[in-house]
């Protein structure tokens, strides 16, 4: 059956930005349980997920992680990125506060790290207006060194424009000097890439938009297995200031903690003036990376 399946060719209709879907995320994560020490829980799962209100000593340094548009731009485990980033920051000794930002919300001015994911066409349309209203602020934050990670759909919208295959021209907010053009086929599969800053980056790509970089925006990495930004050059993702754009899911951060470390380091340096890197046991991460990297495209 699986054999037959793999020979079945299905070309998904791909009119849109991004890789898709929407909204959900399963998150009945009782926030207390994201704190530094693992808890033996006899606690129930019914604790509502409010914005995190860490109860920690006043001496503890807190980083505020803002997840952009989790309701409309959240697919392929974007929650995994936020969760992983938060735990990583905690492992480095910081308390974390996770704030959801959805269209119409008041934007948290004191955000220390921004994370955003992909969405379906419908999700893209919903956030478009809000994102543009927020653009001047986001640009200023980017230029001032606030670390950001944007994946897939938001990566595309952080570029200058997106020309869909249907002929629509969607304006991006232009943090990256990048243009995305809708392609006919989806680029789907396991991907491995080499980055000067982050070493080997491992994930899964699924997008139809083809992105080309120019100007001062550099690629995140060079692809060694997979497609990346487009089918022409071998680059993947984008880098400018402390902002990272990428097409990689997987989720990205759990298997690439070096990127979490970068985001936490930049946020901590900006907010507290220094960052002290802790040694973290990554043996399980290494095994997950090894098996993921060995998978066929």
């Amino acid at each position: 059956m699986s054999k037959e399946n793999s020979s079945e060719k299905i070309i998904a209709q791909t009119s849109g930005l991004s890789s898709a879907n929407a909204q959900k995320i399963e998150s009945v994560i009782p926030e207390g349980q994201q704190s530094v020490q693992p808890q033996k829980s006899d606690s129930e799962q019914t604790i509502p997920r409010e914005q995190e209100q860490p109860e920690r000593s006043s001496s503890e340094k807190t980083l505020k992680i803002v997840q952009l548009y989790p309701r409309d731009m959240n697919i392929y485990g974007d929650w995994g990125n936020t969760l992983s980033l938060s735990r990583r920051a905690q492992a480095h000794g910081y308390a974390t506060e996770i704030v959801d930002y959805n269209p119409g919300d008041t934007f948290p001015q004191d955000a220390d790290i921004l994370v955003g994911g992909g969405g379906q066409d419908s999700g893209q349309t919903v956030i478009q207006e809000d994102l543009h209203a927020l653009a001047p602020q986001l640009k200023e934050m980017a230029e001032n060194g606030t670390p950001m990670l944007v994946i897939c759909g938001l990566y595309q919208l952080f570029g200058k424009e997106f020309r869909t295959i249907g002929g629509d021209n969607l304006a991006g907010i232009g943090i990256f000097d990048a243009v995305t053009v809708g392609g006919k086929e989806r680029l789907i599969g396991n991907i491995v890439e080499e980055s000067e800053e982050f070493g080997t980056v491992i994930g899964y790509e699924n997008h139809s938009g083809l992105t080309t970089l120019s100007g001062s925006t550099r690629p995140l990495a060079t692809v060694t297995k997979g497609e990346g930004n487009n089918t022409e050059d071998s680059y993947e993702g984008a880098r400018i200031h402390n902002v990272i754009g990428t097409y990689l899911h997987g989720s990205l951060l759990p298997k690439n903690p070096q990127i979490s470390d970068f985001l936490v380091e930049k946020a901590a340096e900006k907010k507290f003036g220094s960052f002290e890197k802790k040694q973290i046991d990554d043996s399980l991460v290494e095994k997950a990376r090894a098996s993921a990297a060995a998978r066929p495209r």
Partner: protein
Amino acid sequence: MSRPVTRLIGQGVRYATKLRGGGSAFPGLVMEKLHPNFVPEELAKLPKGVVVVSGTNGKTTTTKMVVQLLESQGLKVFTNRTGSNFVRGVAAALLGEMNLKGKLDADIAVLELDEAHAVHFVKKVKPDYALLLNVLRDQLDRFGEIDTTRRMLAQVAANTTGTVVLNREDPRIRSLAENVGSETQVRYFGLSEKLRAMFPSDDEMRSAGAGGEKKLAPELPAASVVLKDFTGTAANFLIDGEEAAGNVNLYGVYNIFNAAAAMALTLEVMGEQADRTALLRELAEITPAFGRGETLSVNDQTLQLLLVKNPSGFRLSLASADARDYATMIVINDQYADGRDVSWLWDVDFHSLQNGGVSMVSGVRAYDMALRLEHDDVTVASVNEDLEQALAEFIKKSEGKPMRIFTTYTAMLAIRKELSKITDVEEIS
């Protein structure tokens, strides 16, 4: 080539394939090449027509329910119950059911079709009935986006000639009423107000999890069958507004909801001739489909196989039983039929497994799964990518506890094969 000859070749290939083992759709492929109109021509002969069951979750179990419920009403039912839900799988099943004279002895066909394949199927065969269950995020690396999946199902709805039965609780399914032709009827199955909160859609999942920000409930159409309430396996339904009690002996709350779907479809097919007593009696007799919560016996202990393939399904499956009562194993593969992108595991909340932990994690992506569990502070006793070893160790160490294995599709096939060496596993031809 003459038709009987073509068919006999197909039946011969099916027989030979069966002897060799595996490949349930291969004979169908042969038929498709030799006689492309074989399936539509044969199905057109059925007096009560063709039912298509589709949606992202619960197709196999619901199809099985529909088959049994229609049989309880005295119909002879043809189905593709091998789980090979592609057009050629249908052809292969047809070949298996025909006698050597080429006669299909059935009143009605009930076909489980994968949403992408349903689109191809309805171009060839216009179904008389369609039962459309849900559009949950599922194997997006295959279909791209859930809105794309909805568009596929819209084509199924548009090509159905008799009645389309829709899940009124799923906004993407409910809105398919707009795609139905003017001659075609629309019926719904649904949940009571009370139960609605238990079945959040993908869109609602996050806010539902948060316990806050209730969206305004949209105006819902009346449903011919409503799941009103349930305790354990005892369920109360409202059939055209009348209370009816039944038992659904299947694992998981979603299966009880699927029973409402299957009943709504059956009542629609039977119309005035429906025998509700027989219907409810049969409902209690339904056993799980292949790997969908089927219970095997291993060393005098029960072992449940629970197929997982997307966040909502995994979430519901986890919520269906208390983790402390089971020894738990999770097996994640990433073949095409499993979903090649394992990102979806990050959208499942595993906190409920903190009680009791997980005894064994296996499969090609065992370490991705173990890493996921670590993020939710769930203790994992052992990780072993080698399924054979992992399964043996899991059974050995379960210490008399009932066992359950959450598994992706291809891993389930491998587990069944392995288990067949030590216990009775239903033969799937």
